[in-house]
């Protein structure tokens, strides 16, 4: 294990070569015995579905009539998530949750993390009808950036700077994903190059601009005023963030350990993904945030997985032959998922390398790894596989496969074609999200209950199989 000095000085963080800077005052607090270990959650979403075969150990049957819990110890992980093997003792694979109420066909939009339906068609990508789980978790563990949402747009060009796609503080209050690593870097570490005066000047500017904007407020009412309040909140949040960064700047940590930016803006999806994972690790380790969401594909189908193949993501999901890589689409999807798992495993390794309390940062972290479109591109949400890694300081059970009752069909002896279908009585993905809140010491009876039936409420409740 690295000590903090050597970590700060030398650890290369993958393709972007960021140098990490754990908060010096955190270590000081640890030394003084005043440090309260924060819990951290990382959500990683990807498009085109988490095929059952992509996360199911071949030696554990997918189908089962009863809820099953099987230790993973003697089971090898499948190809797509093999990069997580070093963390198998911290892992839980979940099959049999449902998300049929979210119409996740071609991407679940905001439903994937909220478990709430905004409608079908374009509505599910646009309407923000409630709080997402990453925001709910973020409320429990405040930090400089309460939540860091990093987007990875498909395709081969610059893509959008920001996107509203996965996360929201509540109805009508989406949280933007930062889709350009260099811009996200600027948000997170831009203060490094600042001098002492800059923070005061910026504060002065924000105060003045805020006052300017507030003058409008009294002339508006109802939804129009709420619209402006959202803008004002943004000014205040930027100002507040600047103030906190100023403190970190004063400690010297940010200036001394300035991460290096990639020389040129990343254009390929694989490179953007790598940079975003590096940024996520850096932000967590420096204590800038405790909650990160990486959404690869922006919760819907994009153009291509550039860096892996330039063929359309939609076509690949249809298992069409990919002339560029000379394999069928599902193989390309498998490579994409594995690449993603490799990058995320790298992120976890970095957390594992940082001592915290009596263990490492990873001991107080959980990764939630899933697709925004359940188990495949054209899905009815009848099974929504998840992989969790980490136990959040001992609150989550690990080293297990948890299978809720599930039928398997379309097998034909080919593991890739196995298609799980959970009965309507199974828990919804909301149940898993509710479990996370329990593990974060913020229990709720249900998470975003969207059914009128009281019988259904239990499908939205915490999953005892996952909690210690």
């Amino acid at each position: 294990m690295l000590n903090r000095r050597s970590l700060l000085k030398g650890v290369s963080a993958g393709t972007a070569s960021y140098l990490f800077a754990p908060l010096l005052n955190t270590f000081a607090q640890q030394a003084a015995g005043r440090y309260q270990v924060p819990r951290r959650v990382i959500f990683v979403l990807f498009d085109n579905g988490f095929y059952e075969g992509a996360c199911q150990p071949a030696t554990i049957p997918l189908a089962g009539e009863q809820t099953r819990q099987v230790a993973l110890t003697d089971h090898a992980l499948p190809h797509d998530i093999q990069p997580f093997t070093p963390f198998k003792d911290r892992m839980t694979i979940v099959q049999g949750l449902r998300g049929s109420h979210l119409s996740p066909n071609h991407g679940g939009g905001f439903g994937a993390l909220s478990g709430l339906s905004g409608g079908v068609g374009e509505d599910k990508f646009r309407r923000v009808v409630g709080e997402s789980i990453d925001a709910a978790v973020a409320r429990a563990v405040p930090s400089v950036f309460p939540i860091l949402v990093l987007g990875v747009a498909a395709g081969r060009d610059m893509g959008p700077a920001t996107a509203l796609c996965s996360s929201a503080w509540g109805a009508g209050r989406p949280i933007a994903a930062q889709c350009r690593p260099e811009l996200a870097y600027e948000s997170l570490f831009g203060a490094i190059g600042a001098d002492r005066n800059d923070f005061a000047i910026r504060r002065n500017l924000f105060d003045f601009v805020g006052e300017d904007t507030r003058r409008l407020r009294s002339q508006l009412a109802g939804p129009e005023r709420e619209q402006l309040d959202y803008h004002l909140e943004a000014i205040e949040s930027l100002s507040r963030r600047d103030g906190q960064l100023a403190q970190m700047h004063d400690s010297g940590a940010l200036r001394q350990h300035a991460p290096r930016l990639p020389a040129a803006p990343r254009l390929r999806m694989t490179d953007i993904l790598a940079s975003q994972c590096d940024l996520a690790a850096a932000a967590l380790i420096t204590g800038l945030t405790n909650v990160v969401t990486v959404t690869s594909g922006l919760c819907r189908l994009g153009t291509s997985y550039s860096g892996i193949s330039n063929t359309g993501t939609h076509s690949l999901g249809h298992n069409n032959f990919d002339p560029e890589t000379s394999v069928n689409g599902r193989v390309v999807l498998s490579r994409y998922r594995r690449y993603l798992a490799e990058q995320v495993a790298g992120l976890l390794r970095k957390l594992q390398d940082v001592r915290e309390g009596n263990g490492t940062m990873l001991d107080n972290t959980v990764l939630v790894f899933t697709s925004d479109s359940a188990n495949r591109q054209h899905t009815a949400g009848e099974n929504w596989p998840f992989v969790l890694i980490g136990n959040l300081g001992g609150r989550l059970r690990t080293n297990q496969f948890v299978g809720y009752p599930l039928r398997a069909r379309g097998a034909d002896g080919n593991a890739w074609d196995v298609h799980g279908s959970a009965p309507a009585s199974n828990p919804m993905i909301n149940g898993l999200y509710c479990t996370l809140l329990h593990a974060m010491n913020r229990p709720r009876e249900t998470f975003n209950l969207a059914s009128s039936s009281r019988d259904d409420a239990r499908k939205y409740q915490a999953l005892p199989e996952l909690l210690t």
Partner: protein
Amino acid sequence: MFYGRLLFLVTLFASIVSAAHAEPRRFLTQFCVQCHGEKKPKASLSLHDLTDAPVKKSEIDTWKILLDQVETEQMPPEGAKRPTPAERQKMVASIQAMLKSAGVSLDESRWLAPSRGNWVDHDALFSGKPVDPAATRPRLWRLSGQAYEEFMQQKNLQFKLGIKNYGQGKMRAPWEFSNQKEFSDYSSTHKIGEADLEYHLRNATRMAKLMVAKFAGSRPSATFSDWIGELNVVVVAGKSAAPAQIDAAVAASFDKILNRKLEAEELKRYAAFYKKSLDQIGGERGTEQFLIAILLRPEVMYRIELPATEGPRAILPPAALARAVSFALTDSEPDEPLRKAASAGELASAADVRVQVERILRDRKIPKTRVLRFFQEYFGYKSAMDIFKDETTLAEYGIPRDGWVPNHFIADADHLIQWILEGDKNVLHELLTTNKTFLLTAELRGKKVQPGGFKGRGLQSTLAIYGVSISGEQWSPNKPFDLPAEQRMGILTHPSWLAAHSTNFDNHTIDRGRWIRERLLGGRIPEIPITVDATLPDEPHQPLRERMRVTKVEYCWQCHKFMDPLGMPFEQFDHFGRFRTAELIVDKQATEMKGKQGKLGTRVMTTAPLDITGTIEASGDATLDGPVKGPRELIDKLAKSERVEQVFVRHVFRYFLGRNETLSDGPVLVAAHRAYRESGGSMNALLASLLTSDAFLYRAK
């Protein structure tokens, strides 16, 4: 004595609370509990013991669902005892109040969404009955991405800042719109959040730095007309700048950057901020902060529409009116004539505004980008490029791998619309009935057809999908061509619309029917219940009409009866937009046989007879209702309907006013429709009427 008073207060409070909550209880008993009672409740939902005062935490979600069901008129169902509109409204208000007092945040803005536009009663709107004077609420309207970038580019050119307007150097908008089948730009739709603002701050900082670099030096040339000499004086003087010099720099900067004069109080505040910045960090950096502050003003990001005077209702001030007119039709800030009219006090009445609106509509040099965008979003045909067709499907339908290029159809539809707008006669009728289209404008406009015919990506197959055969010599980018009149009739039979309202593998009969129900007939379709698995059976060997049997189930048919029979006539075309006389389906047996022989790949296809009949039902216009033999009869009926024209007017209103209509807008809509009719179906007359209406000009609290 004290206890007596206390008892009285407690009793009074209890009676107030009880009265406030009597409504939900009465409503539940009267309309809900019969089906959702204690014994065998429908959908396992019991409402008989729901607690209303105060709402129990565990029952909040049930109340939210109840609110949605009552508000959208989905419950009580048709055939059951139903509340009057007033009773329904009361119940909605009561549940909202209860949920709010329980700390629940409600998404009240959903009623402002374009998808809810038709929930205002059509007949009431066009009834001609007197209502409150029309006006729009005081509001903010975030600039479109295009308008934002136009502003930045205009400043770039004005001050010769040297920012590249392409590639990675381009100053991009923090937000952008994707292709949608719904109006994307209502004033209530978009907010500016932290990430947007941070992005804008970066743009503003970049621009401010470049401006400071420019104004720290000497005037580039005598002809540099936008030189702000007053700013130059302060940048150079720095901390020692005199108050009068700072005041002059502030006023001049506002004038040149935002094209407006400052109020005295504003001038004082900005001068104080500028002075403070200069004292803290000197001339160049202090000026940079001052310029950033100007560029972070809300008006750089929004259209701000507040009434000119205090009071319940007033016309917009001239500067705001100038922006409203300009941004209604274009992506640009007001041009010089508009600005001059505003500052000369010649933009203070409907007549003044009409002069400017008609001038802009007449001037062919001014690109009316938003007018074309309205039609793109109204018909939703730009989504055709998002409907992916995989290679297998292309092969099965006999289209070459590179032969499906929906951009061709979109560009051709754009040109057709612009051509019809240039004629400006019977615009809607023409759009719905013409058999003309432009051809291959996306690829060939501005180029010459190569000798030997059309050689380029998908050109030949595009012509084949249209069903036309022309030679290179006949082709021209500037004129429309006739499509077979017995096959095609207007945009709804144009491949762009047909492909946009299709799925990846099929016609989307439901979506097409829904489009007609909502966009032409003004009907309302409730949102799909979350418990419904809205997919058709995966039976590619069955005709679509057969696969749609699932929508005929009683529960589904309640809504589908308003959509499916209107979409069915478009079975005349396949999902690429080709005219057809039989439906292509999978030959199951032959495909299985092929598989057994180890020959994988495309499936064996066969045909099934086509049924293109449909029905117009409950349209709101009795003369329209009845069966139709096919798409031509359906379109012909719709194109002649006055109601359809009125619904079109409602959509034009929504797009250009940026909001849904209310009952108060009834007279505005009636007048706009009259203007359209009396002008022989002129879009310009319709726009002039709407953009000079009280709804456009006035703001009321």
